[in-house]
């Protein structure tokens, strides 16, 4: 394992899940694969920790789940964004952008 892999900052997993669902409904494994690929394997996300987060987001009403057939025709649980979830993604993305640019600014200037 390479040393340049990062642990996920607290609370950002939700944002990443919402983002990866913004392209359409997906099941848990696909989300995990996607995060792994898109981050070019730099983000250290234990696969299991995905599920508590998914269920929490479902409870909050930001995503909803439905059983459907997977690519290889097996029963899988698909998650998709709800309207409030989409809004939540927007506000959280904006907040994240603001935060990172502010932190970056401070790091450059100070």
């Amino acid at each position, binding site marked *: 394992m390479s040393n340049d892999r990062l642990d996920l900052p607290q609370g950002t997993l939700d944002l990443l899940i919402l983002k990866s669902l913004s392209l359409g409904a997906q099941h848990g494994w696909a989300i995990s*694969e996607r995060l792994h690929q898109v981050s070019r394997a730099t983000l250290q996300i234990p696969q299991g920790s995905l599920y508590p987060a998914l269920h929490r987001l479902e*409870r909050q009403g930001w995503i909803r789940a439905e059983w459907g057939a997977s690519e290889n025709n097996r029963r899988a649980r698909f998650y998709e964004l709800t309207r409030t979830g989409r809004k939540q993604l927007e506000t959280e993305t904006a907040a994240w952008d603001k935060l990172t640019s502010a932190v970056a600014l401070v790091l450059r200037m100070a």
Partner: protein
Amino acid sequence: MLSDLRFRLRALFDRSRMERELDDELRFHLERETEKHMRAGLPHAEAERLAQVTFGGMSRIKDDTRDSRGVIGIEVFQQDLRYAWRGLRSRPGFAIAVVLTLGLGIGANTAMFGIVDRLLFRPPAHLSTPDRVHRVFARYVWDGKERAEGSFAYTRFLDFSRLTRSFDRIAAATTRRLPVGSGAEAREMNVAPVSATLFDFFDARPALGRYFAPDEDRTPAGAPVAVLGYGFWQSRYGGRADVLGKSLHVGDAVYTIVGVAPEGFVGVTEEAAPAVFLPITAFASSRNRTYFQNYSWTWHDVVARRKPDASVAEASRDLSAAFAQSWELERQLEPSLPSAAKVNARAEAMPVLQSRGPEVGRDAKVVTWVMGVAFIVLLVACANVANLLLARAVSRRREIALRLALGVTRRRLLQQLLTESLLLAALGGIAGLAAAQWGGQALRALFLRTEDASAVMTDGRTLAFAALITLAVALLTGLAPAIHGIRGDVADSLKSGRREGTYRRSRLRSSLLLFQSAFSVVLLIGAGLFVRSLANVRALRLGYDLEPLVYVEAKPRGVNLSVAQANALAERIIEVAEATPGIRSASLAISVPFYSSEGRGAPFVPGRDSLHKLGRFTLQAGSAKYFQTLGTRIMRGRGISDADHATSAPVIVINEAMANAIWPGEDALGKQMRIGSDTNPYMTVVGVVENMRGRQLTGDAEFWYYLPIKQYLARFGSLYPYAFVRVSGRAEDYVETLRRRLQPLMPGESYVSAVPMRSLVSPRQRSWEFGATMFVAFGALALVLAAIGLYSVIAYAVAQRTHELGVRIALGAGLADVIRMIVGQGVAFAAAGVAIGSVIALWAGKWVEPLLFSQKVRDPLIYLAVAVALLIVALVATLRPALRATRVDPTVALRAD
């Protein structure tokens, strides 16, 4: 918000389905991951392993997912409950010990709560806005002492109604024992004369018919109508609806039944539920024609309901002003009265419950103490259970460590352990309710005057209280052991195994044990004090024999007997009574101890002034067999004889206290005195008899003097005669026989009552009896609990020290050494408990002393007895573990683990 709720509800009710779905979802993930690795060329087994590793701990993730679903609380609780239940089932001995211990503690408290609540907190049934309902008490200074008076004249009640502004309702109420029914059916029952306004204080409709109306309750005489009490309606009339319009003989008059009070309705009395409610003016006019015109007859309570906008202080000020005005009105009738300002006449709005008014009885105080004692028993029980749980937590260390290692969070584990103690407490609570139901019956019979004291199981307040203390018990017993259990290093616990390297004494367990033994000592000392005090009460010589005495009272009704007729009736009663088999002797009397006494003021003695300053004098008159019948000892001179008749020389017999007070150091025999007025002839003292008690069991000796009844009648006229009858055996056995034989003598509607003397004195001894019974019961309970605690701690210590003991025995320690070591430990605990407990008892003693009957709280004998008792218990409790310790086989002990 809504989706959240739906989600939680689904999670709660659809638990098994959600659980299945979660399994499916996670399995799907693992399968895909495995496939991925297989596609990359790994063999199936390797791929599967890798998938599991990257996924993380399955059970932990499932737990977390369940947590994030929200209903975690209830769902996990159910699961924990099942787990705890299985745990208890696997160790029934432990479970039963704990449940019984808690059951006794909770039961004691629940039963006591029922009584304390009744006496001190619960307002009368059906009373609306009880916070605003007050009992009125007047205060004034009389004879240099401030008096609180809760009893009023009807005229005063009228003044209060007219002169106060801060009340929206005001009522007069009292209760009397009166004959109800006619002829042989007549029975003395509690009857409540109340004003019509009293019913407006309650928000319950009559069970049948109506209450009486204000125009049926007015001066000079109210209408002869009656409202039946629910219980009486059920028992006498079988709850039939056709009682309305029937007539009923109550006291001297006949009333028409117009309604039946609702179930549980007693008005504002704290005595037995009244059989009948009468308009107070109808009752009063049958007794006294001028009851509403003067203030001489003070006989009923006044209750008033404060207007919502008036404070208690304002209400009391209002009452005080009205009382002062009323006092002045009384002074216009009786100019000899001092002014209202001079006696500082005030009135107060007190809580409606009598035991919270100014006249707090010894009963209420003793009950409060016993409640405190019950609470201590509960604490001791909790300490005991906490100790057992601690022992268990320590022996479960390895199991707990294992679960921690498997990824169960400490919080979950804490929850689980607390659930277990909650389950134990709940089972204890159920056992406690059963105990309270069963034991409470006896308690209430001892303590509450109300016959309809409701059962524990059906009483909401008592059940709520039981639930509350059950919860508190769960926390109290569970918290320490639970925290203790999950603390500590996982790896360490797993490595050390069952036996810890060396024996470590748990400081927490030791202090719990000390606490237990100390409080058992306190309770046992209390028990000792109350038992001695009760023995003192029982041993108290009243100046007459209690057990073989019956007092008989003839109650004329509906007839006007002339003096001659009344006296002839009295003579006949004595004759018939004495002719009854088993009756030793009988005598007429005019006073009955603890029931009715005739005061004639202080006697006049030549050369002695102001004898009234010595105290109260009570006059008794009796037939020739008076002293013989009562068993009163004659100390000097003679008693009353047949020769003392109306025309013979006037004689008098006095008691020792009176002789010593009037003629200290002199011989009273042959001295002269007269009573009533100074125109009456002098009487010669012919006898001195032993002291006697007829007003109070405690306090200064009472002054009694005795006249031959014939001389009394000749000088003071008619009498309302009582008779004393001495039986051979127990008075109770003769009461019914006497009543049946004497009843035919009674003219018209008159009737006769026969009551054992003991029943007049017993209520006065009740608080001592109750205190002794309860302290002994609870003290014994605490002692048993302490013994269990000691046993479990020592037994556990022995089990833990098996290794060490093995070494010692291998090194040559003898049997006696081992026993001495183990037993010494137990005895040391007990000794420390005795020391601490004695200090607490000495300190708390000063508050208990007023409740004891001529018993000093610092009674070394009691302290000694308790110390010995606890040490013996400690010896017995530790002997078994000690013997087990001696059987430790060094080879086995050293090789084990």
